């Protein structure tokens, strides 16, 4: 054989195996596909979401180095803007931003500016950036104006050129113009005059400041009226920071799916190598070196990695489209971030997917390859030899599990970031998975001892578990990971849902909630005309400040209303509410300020007020689920004293017994509120729970997919057992074993292992949920909640696992029925 030939010959000899055993090729691809698909789907969504955040600022935000905002959050008056321009600050331009919903409830972001006011060098660029080189600027700035739609958004909403999109409240956008490029994200771009008219506002959201020298920035600061402030553009940073935890969580779940997929790959590679043992030995006998053999297997790995990652990315592309609405809902509900529907598969994701597949395959191949190169040490041809090899493998895995546990303990000791938290979870999950085979073997041995006096056939059926364990080992580990993750996350979501419902019951205690710009809320409550039906009213006020670099709301509460004196506090100093309401310069903060902002009870917090920095002592922390921002509560009088431009932030109304909602609504209309500006208590709770369920729909989808991947692992393992042991099964049938007994031999050990795995997953799931609730969730979102353990998710998963086992057994039985007669006819022939 010429020196250049062996590798090609060896690769061809090795790959020819898959022509004869196409199922093994399918198993391998299913594993790779399952692993890569979910991971890449999440990567596609994550990178797309991050791009959307960047795009959200691209048009105006990214080009603005600073923002001029109102300290009160009330917006910037047009007169102030004109004053800046007249003072020669040509870099200042107005921005209006708003979120609206279409008639079909699809979220849209509106961004508007005065294109003609953009600083020199930005107007043309900005226009080009919008793909607007061919757009009619004159029509853009004049009534009836234009609404520039990104093409993908227009397509998604079914908006044609020139069409006026109707919003949920009946307002209509200016005629649509489709922008050729997508840089504006999901934002509808329009002239600032059009936006103010559409939104019924007379103030800008902020003034953006183009690139300026430090001197100009200093002059600007000096020229600022008292109620305005200049701040560096941190908006993009905010959104990226805020959403980082959610993206980390999604990535962690996708990596778990990748790991579960790898278990299938490991199984498939192990069996394909095991099947090809005679071929490998023959090749070595005819003079192929171990090195050439190893190179051939590396070449094969490359082939599979390319095929697997390509198919996985293709499937991931499809899954990402299916999951995007759920993720968009989560991002919109949690952070107000709007993510578009135009997904892109970037080269980095492709490269990483291929790299991960390659590494995963190398990992799955490394062990059996090492054993193969060391000699005939792979599981032998008999079940007994397989049992011996399995015992060795179990011991190695158990030692590995011990090492992982030690590492987990080390991480837990120093854990202070979300990524470290997920590293801890991964270490614990894999330690449990690696320890599982030995636990199953020990439990199986105990069962064998307990059945020592049972009839032989029963002992035989149970003892066959020893022959199945080597093949089922990896599938059971995958199942344990999937079940544990499902239980942990379900308990987290269930606990969160219960906590949220309880919190809403406590916090949403009033009958009607009003949010109206036209209503004088304090006057309404004090009006004697309303005394006949109004039991109590709480007119809240608030200002927006920046604290620790983030927008932070300071609310002024009426200390005498039912919701204030019953305010549930997660942590509080003694008599916190009484002392806080009596004006002792105490402040209440949300949990986010505690867990993410680092505030402690009794600590002094300095807030920027209109009279200069003011210190308050933290008296307590309140739950504030779903809010990504810091928030403070002060008595209403204190807020009015410290800040000049305080705005109304809503009104809560308690009705007297027997008073109908219509009475209150009539009074609200008479006082200037518009229909649609108030909500009944029940509506708010229902909406909140609906938003919650939408937010966590993605989690449920990921859970289901992970479980399906584990089911696929189980199926591949059982089919491998079937193919491997078909001659043995045929021999048993020849001894008079009935088909039913044969099915029991396959099913009983499987059911036993699945049951034990499920039982192991229950405490592990509880541990996982405990860590998710008490550590990860707090570090990610700053929310704490009591863990609520319910047996229902475990029972549901048990039934689901049983269903998967029945389905898998049905497939195996059909294969068995098809293949057994041929195997029986070949008994005694050269095997």
């Amino acid at each position: 054989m010429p020196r250049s030939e062996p590798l090609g010959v060896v690769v061809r000899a090795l790959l020819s195996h898959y022509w004869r055993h196409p199922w093994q090729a399918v198993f391998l691809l299913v594993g790779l596909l399952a692993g890569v698909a979910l991971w890449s789907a999440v990567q596609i969504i994550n990178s797309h979401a991050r791009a959307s955040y960047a795009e959200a600022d691209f048009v105006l935000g990214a080009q603005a180095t600073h923002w001029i905002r109102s300290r009160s959050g009330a917006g910037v008056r047009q007169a102030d803007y004109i004053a800046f321009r007249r003072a020669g600050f040509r870099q200042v331009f107005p921005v209006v931003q708003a979120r609206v919903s279409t008639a079909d409830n699809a979220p849209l972001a509106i961004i508007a500016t005065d294109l003609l006011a953009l600083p020199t060098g930005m107007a043309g660029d900005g226009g080009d950036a919008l793909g607007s080189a061919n757009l009619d600027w004159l029509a853009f700035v004049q009534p009836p104006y234009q609404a520039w739609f990104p093409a993908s958004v227009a397509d998604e909403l079914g908006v044609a050129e020139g069409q006026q999109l109707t919003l949920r409240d009946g307002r209509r956008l200016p005629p649509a113009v489709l922008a050729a490029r997508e840089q504006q994200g999901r934002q509808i771009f329009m002239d600032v005059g059009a936006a103010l008219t559409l939104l019924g506002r007379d103030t800008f959201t902020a003034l953006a400041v183009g690139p300026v020298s430090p001197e100009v920035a200093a002059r600007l600061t000096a020229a600022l009226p008292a109620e305005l402030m200049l701040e560096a553009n941190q908006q993009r940073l905010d959104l990226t920071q805020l959403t980082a935890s959610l993206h980390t969580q999604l990535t962690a779940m996708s990596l778990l799916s990748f790991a579960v997929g790898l278990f299938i790959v490991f199984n498939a590679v192990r069996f394909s190598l095991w099947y090809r043992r005679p071929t490998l030995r023959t090749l070595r006998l005819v003079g192929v070196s171990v090195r050439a053999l190893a190179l051939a297997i590396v070449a094969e790995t490359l082939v599979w990695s390319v095929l697997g990652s390509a198919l996985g990315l293709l499937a991931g592309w499809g899954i990402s489209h299916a999951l995007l609405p759920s993720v968009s809902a989560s991002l919109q509900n949690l952070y107000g971030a709007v993510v578009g529907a135009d997904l892109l598969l970037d080269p980095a994701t492709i490269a990483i997917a291929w790299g991960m597949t390659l590494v995963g395959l190398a990992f799955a191949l490394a062990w059996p390859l090492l054993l193969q190169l060391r000699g005939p040490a792979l599981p032998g041809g008999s079940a007994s030899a397989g049992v011996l090899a399995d015992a060795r493998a179990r011991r190695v895995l158990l030692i590995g599990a011990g090492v992982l546990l030690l590492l987990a303990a080390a991480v837990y000791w120093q854990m202070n970031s979300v990524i470290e938290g997920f590293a801890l979870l991964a270490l614990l999950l894999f330690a449990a998975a690696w320890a599982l085979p030995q636990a199953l073997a020990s439990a199986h041995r105990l069962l064998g001892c307990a059945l020592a006096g049972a009839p032989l056939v029963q002992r035989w059926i149970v003892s066959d578990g020893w022959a199945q364990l080597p093949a089922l080992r990896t599938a059971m580990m995958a199942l344990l990971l999937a079940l544990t993750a499902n239980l942990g996350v379900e308990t987290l979501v269930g606990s969160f849902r219960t906590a949220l419902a309880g919190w809403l019951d406590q916090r949403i205690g009033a009958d009607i909630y009003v949010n109206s710009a036209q209503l004088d809320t304090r006057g309404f409550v004090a009006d004697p005309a309303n005394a006949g039906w109004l039991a109590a009213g709480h007119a809240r006020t608030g200002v927006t400040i920046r604290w620790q670099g983030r927008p932070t709301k300071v609310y002024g509460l009426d200390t005498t209303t039912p919701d204030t004196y019953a305010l549930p506090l997660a942590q509080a100093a003694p008599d916190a509410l009484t002392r806080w309401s009596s004006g002792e310069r105490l402040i209440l903060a949300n949990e986010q300020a505690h867990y993410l902002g680092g505030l402690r009870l009794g600590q002094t917090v300095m807030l920027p007020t209109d009279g200069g920095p003011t210190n308050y002592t933290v008296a307590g922390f309140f739950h504030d689920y779903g809010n990504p921002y810091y928030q403070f509560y002060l008595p209403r009088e204190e807020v009015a004293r410290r800040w000049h431009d305080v705005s109304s932030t809503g009104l809560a109304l308690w009705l007297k017994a027997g008073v109908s909602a219509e009475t209150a609504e009539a009074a609200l209309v008479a006082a200037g509120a518009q229909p649609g500006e108030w909500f009944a208590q029940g509506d708010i709770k229902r909406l909140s729970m609906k938003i919650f369920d939408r937010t966590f729909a993605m989690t449920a989808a990921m859970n289901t997919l992970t479980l399906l991947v584990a089911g696929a692992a189980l199926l591949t393992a059982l089919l491998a057992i079937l193919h491997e042991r078909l001659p043995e099964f045929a021999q048993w049938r020849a001894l008079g074993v009935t088909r039913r007994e044969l099915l029991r031999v396959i099913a009983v050990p499987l059911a036993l292992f699945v049951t034990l795995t499920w039982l192991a997953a229950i405490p592990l799931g509880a541990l996982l949920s405990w860590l998710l609730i008490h550590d990860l969730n707090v570090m990610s979102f700053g929310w704490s909640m009591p863990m609520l353990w319910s047996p229902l998710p475990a029972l549901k998963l048990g039934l689901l696992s049983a269903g998967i086992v029945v389905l898998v057994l049905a497939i195996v039985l059909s294969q068995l029925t098809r293949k057994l007669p041929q195997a029986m006819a070949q008994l005694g022939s050269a095997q």
Partner: protein
Amino acid sequence: MLSFSGVVKRYAQPEGEVTVLAGVDLDIVAGEAVALLGESGSGKSTLLHLAAGLDTPDVGRIAVGGHALAAMDDRALAALRRGTVSLVFQQFHLIGTLSVADNIRFQAALCGRLDPAFEAELIERLGLRTQLDKYPHQLSGGQQQRVAIARALLHRPALVLADEPTGNLDERSSGAVMALFRDLVKAAGSALLMVTHSRDMADYLDRRLWLREGRLHDAPI
């Protein structure tokens, strides 16, 4: 005990249909030991599979103990194989997860015909007394074949079908195991049809038949 009447068996091959058995007639009476000889590919194993109900003939009638196999469904065939017919193959196919003692008792336990006295005799004569608590992978090839023989005979089947039972053993071991096998079959009161390509092994039995060109002959050419 076993009868074949005009049995024909054909197989489809890429080059066309091949007739392996072209009208086989055979009668084996209770307690009779018959050796079936023939060249490789002559159809010996096919004939054995048909006798065990593992395969079905295209033409002809096969009966075991007077019962036609064609009339039996899968359940009845399984019952036949577990109680009436025993098979011994070149591959021992012991159950790796059961001890030697349990492997010996396996088929008798399946058909509920455990016989401690005969079991003790089989174990004694097959020299397995010290091996009972071991597992198959701890035995040599010869020992494993003895276990397979004990398993096949313990429930005293009416018919034993053996396919090269000593094919995996060396010449010296083969002779000893064969003699023992024949004696034990006799002791169990079973009829025996044994496929072999070895004239020496065939000489241990009562009658020899040659399968050639799909038909049985009483003598070699």
